């Protein structure tokens, strides 16, 4: 059997989520798109549905202007445009989760605009601290699961859930290993492969994603030393599918060594400890959290500083899709905390775009040059 070229596979899948949905439809497997990484994939998967992450790809917003003002977040506008252009017509349903002031009305408007689409919402709490929000998250999840039964016709099978949890935890371990190997083999595992691999996990059935990723990470020796020549950058932000920032880091002699992105570590960090409904919910409450959620006043600051120290980060780029309020609120204090540790940072705000940008190149070059290893 011909040995697979994993980077090529990852590139192909991550560049075309719609083709992935179509391929499952040809196999007559039901597919739900989900808008946020707080939608608990394990439950959908265990109920026989393939969950596929929805990230806006449209860059020329026209039809969505009839629903959202120009000061609405790029992810919402872009995704709405995709749907209005019928890009996701093969989906069997769309699942939302509560996050921010833009996604919230997006759910309502989406439901109105596409009345024939099966749309459900997992209304997880904004508070992630303590047992009261956890108790609600479990109760709300059970309510949500009853609404999914309207589609599947049968309740969640706990034995199936336990099997699914093993697959998802495996996927998280593999991505964790890939991130660690990237620090040792930055040439063979370029920065963009981190993003592409996370997107593969978000777009493909996890069993398949694991089957492709596992031999690739197994092919590297784990005891090799970490690279010490490249400057280490950490990306912090919301969702991103633009590879340019990763490529520019590599090109200028640095690397994206780690991240706190929804299309990165936030997605796969933290394992499910117990294969039950409560155990799975607990993982989503405990994982590194989105800026729209609250654990305590310093939880994100603490987490970023710990990660930066662990990865020996030389600089941080706050990479935000425009009009993302929760992240913009956090930025000045996070920057201050990094300044306090002597870690330089820069904020770059972008509209959803897949095209190379001269401005981004200039900013990255200047930033990398100023970093010291």
């Amino acid at each position, binding site marked *: 059997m011909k040995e697979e070229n994993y980077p090529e596979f990852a590139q192909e899948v991550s560049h075309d989520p719609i083709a992935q949905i179509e391929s499952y439809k040809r196999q007559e497997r039901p597919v739900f798109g989900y808008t946020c990484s707080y939608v608990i994939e394990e439950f959908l998967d265990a109920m026989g549905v393939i969950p596929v992450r929805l990230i806006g790809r449209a860059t020329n917003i026209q039809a969505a202007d009839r629903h959202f003002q120009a000061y*609405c977040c790029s992810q919402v506008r872009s995704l709405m445009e995709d749907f209005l252009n019928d890009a996701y017509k093969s989906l069997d349903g769309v699942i939302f989760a509560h996050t921010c*002031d833009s996604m*919230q*009305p997006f759910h309502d408007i989406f439901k*109105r605009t596409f009345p024939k689409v099966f749309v459900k919402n997992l*209304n997880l709490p*904004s508070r992630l601290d303590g047992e009261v929000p956890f108790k609600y998250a479990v109760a709300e999840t059970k309510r949500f699961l009853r609404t999914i039964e309207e589609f599947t016709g049968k309740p969640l099978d706990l034995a199936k859930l336990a099997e699914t949890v093993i697959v998802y935890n495996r996927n998280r371990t593999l991505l964790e290993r890939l991130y660690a190997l990237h620090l040792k083999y930055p040439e063979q595992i370029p920065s963009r492969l981190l993003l592409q691999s996370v997107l593969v996990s978000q777009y493909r059935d996890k069993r398949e994603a694991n089957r492709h990723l596992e031999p690739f990470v197994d092919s590297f020796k784990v005891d090799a030393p970490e690279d010490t020549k490249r400057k280490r950058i950490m990306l912090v932000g919301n969702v991103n599918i633009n590879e340019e920032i990763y490529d520019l880091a590599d090109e200028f002699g640095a690397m994206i060594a780690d991240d706190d992105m929804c299309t990165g570590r936030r997605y796969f960090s933290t394992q499910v400890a117990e294969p039950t409904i409560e155990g799975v919910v607990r993982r989503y409450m405990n994982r590194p959290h989105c800026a729209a959620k609250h654990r305590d*006043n310093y939880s994100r600051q603490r987490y970023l500083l710990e990660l930066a120290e662990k990865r020996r980060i030389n600089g941080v780029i706050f990479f935000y899709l425009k009009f993302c*309020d*929760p992240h913009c609120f956090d930025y000045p204090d996070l920057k201050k905390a990094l300044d306090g540790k002597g870690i330089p940072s820069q904020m770059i705000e972008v509209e959803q775009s897949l095209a190379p940008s001269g401005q981004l190149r200039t900013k990255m070059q200047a930033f990398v040059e100023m970093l010291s290893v």
Partner: protein
Amino acid sequence: MADQNPKALKDLKSNMRLRKIMQKYYLKAKLSWLFRKKICWITSGGPVELLIALGVTPIYPENHGAMIGAMKMGSELCDVAEQMGYSRDLCSYFRADVGQAVTKRSPIKGLPRPDFMLCCNNICGTVLKWYEVQARYYNVPLIILDTPYNYDGETPELISYVSDQFKEIIPELEKVSGRKFTEKKFLEVAEYANEAITLWNEILSICEHVPAPMTCFDAFFYLAPIVTLRGTKIVVDYYKDLKKELTYLADNNIAPFPEERFRLVWDNLPIWFKMRRLSKTLSNYGACLVGDTYTNAWADNDINPEKPYETMARAYATIYLNRNVESRIENMIKMLKKYKAHGFVMHSNRSCKPYSFGQLDIKDEVTRRTGLPGLMIEADMTDQRSYSDEQIETRIQAFIETLKEREV
């Protein structure tokens, strides 16, 4: 036939009395340390009844933001926050609040420092982040009441969650305030709050009368006590008298404008720094804003003394801004009918995203179902930089033409 008398409304005893009430409120707040009272910053949709029952002074940064906006200090204070790295796309109340905290500049020379903060996210997710920022700045405890958005209406899970949080929050409030919570005092406060809410609802309903004795620009002004002093006897007494005065004007057909040719309903927060000019522009065309969705948001929660936590949970979890777009469509249609309106004006407010996103769909649907036209103007509640006189007045003029055509 209306008896036009703009002075009649201006001369109401309630106007001067309100100024005095608010001056006294801020003065007492600033001197809280003298009375050994703790200060709590609270969001406008927050459960102030708990604070009043504990003898804590509530302070509303949003009310202060409105004051900053009305005094046209918004842009300069927002600019201070922007210099600190806060994006101009963030809520202008928040930016102005950061600006006033750092500079102590504002119409009342800054808000008194909080001892702790109480944030209820039933109005937006913004307040959650805003209060995190300010709790770090002042290094004070932050207590959060999380009220999930009503995507699928009011669910039992949601009500239990909010109700459970009340039971959790009360001991925390006792700890930070150093005062003992008693249910007896709380029920007394809740009764005042209920009475004030009923009165406020009745006051707003007086504008169903044709001609309306006041506009929503006046209602924005009279709103301050129900927001800041809800749960006290002062508010109840004040609204009783205001209701009497406004009822007298309505009964005698005394209206502030010479002509009430077009009755309109307003959606979203006011543009605080343009109230006078907008009011004048509209009245020049014989248009009058007789009702609004914003002031009505404080007119419909009710605490039942038999089940105080459950009903308080329901009241706080289901306030207007926490309801889904479908409910907002129904509400707008109901208001247009109630106020016998000829159309509606929507303020697409860059600073209030949950209020503004959805407006484009609401506008289309309301017009489709009622046949009434709507106008959307893009501005900001506090930051003058996001406002263009010419552009907005041209749009108003065009809208009035549409209304005129419909008269024929």
